[in-house]
């Protein structure tokens, strides 16, 4: 399953990093403490967070997650979107909260 497939299944909005939409998604991780995400997210996870700071892109690159879902209608900062476009890290937005996104993602991956 690719990031594009997840976007279609969950109805997410692509706000940056469209160059990375064909990346493979194998799992997911929820977390808003970036130090925790850095330590625990795995490559090919789709990371769900309410953080919009530009460091989410650095953490996504470092952990090699497939992309970042910013939940709860949070608007990522301008720097975040620029950096995500530069790095080709998909940043996806949704009004759903993290619980709902995680539940739906779990269902489509199962």
């Amino acid at each position: 399953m690719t990031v594009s497939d997840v976007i279609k299944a969950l109805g997410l909005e692509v706000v940056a990093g469209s160059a990375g939409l064909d990346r493979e998604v194998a799992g997911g991780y929820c977390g808003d403490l970036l130090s925790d995400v850095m330590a625990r997210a795995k490559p090919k996870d789709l990371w769900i967070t309410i953080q919009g700071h530009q460091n989410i892109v650095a953490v996504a690159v470092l952990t090699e997650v497939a992309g970042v879902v910013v939940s709860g209608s949070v608007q990522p900062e301008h720097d975040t979107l620029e950096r995500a476009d530069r790095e080709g890290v998909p940043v996806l937005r949704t009004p759903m909260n993290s619980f709902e996104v995680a539940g739906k993602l779990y269902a489509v991956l199962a």
Partner: protein
Amino acid sequence: MTPENIIGLCLEYGVDIVGLTDHNSGANARAVSGFAEGTGVTVWPGMEVQTREEVHLVVLAGDLEGLDAWQGFIYSHLPDRPNRPEVFGEQTLFDKESRVTGVVDRLLLTSVDLSVNDVRLEARRRGLVIYPAHVDRPVYGYISNLGLPPPAEDFGLIELSTGTTPEEVRGKYPSLEGCIAIVSSDAHRLAELGPARTRLHLYGPTLGEFQAAIAGRDGRKVEVY
């Protein structure tokens, strides 16, 4: 903590300058500054702001009027919810004689709806000193919550808790090499006041002098011992 016992302990420990930084509020700064008058202790009125990312930033104002204006700005970005003293504790207000004059009714123990960058830029615009608090701590710190240390150009100054040293933190995060560090007590109770290890070499106890010391101008400097 009351104005009297905060300043009393500063005198006992030989603390010349104390930053008063209540959580998202500056409502007791006038009382503590008032009590300090004539004691030889200088109070820098300030605030510990909790951002949307739950990162704590220390803001220091040059005078009480500057802090009042800043408090107005911060209050306008706090959720309009009443405090629940049985859950969060009383938010007590004092006068300079250390008499209780009331409480802050609105909930302070939460985050403003502003990002680290929003708060930093607004503080800079107002000429206030701003720096990330206790960046080495596992909670409410810039690094714990945002994964990486702040870019050196964003703050120029970072605060460390008494549990570490600048050498240790710079060793772990080489990008902080060019950043000035101070060690502060972050005292929330009287027993925590005192063990800070920062000496400021200034020509006077003003915030402008502190800014000059951060910039390393004309022999002023920040020293951690």
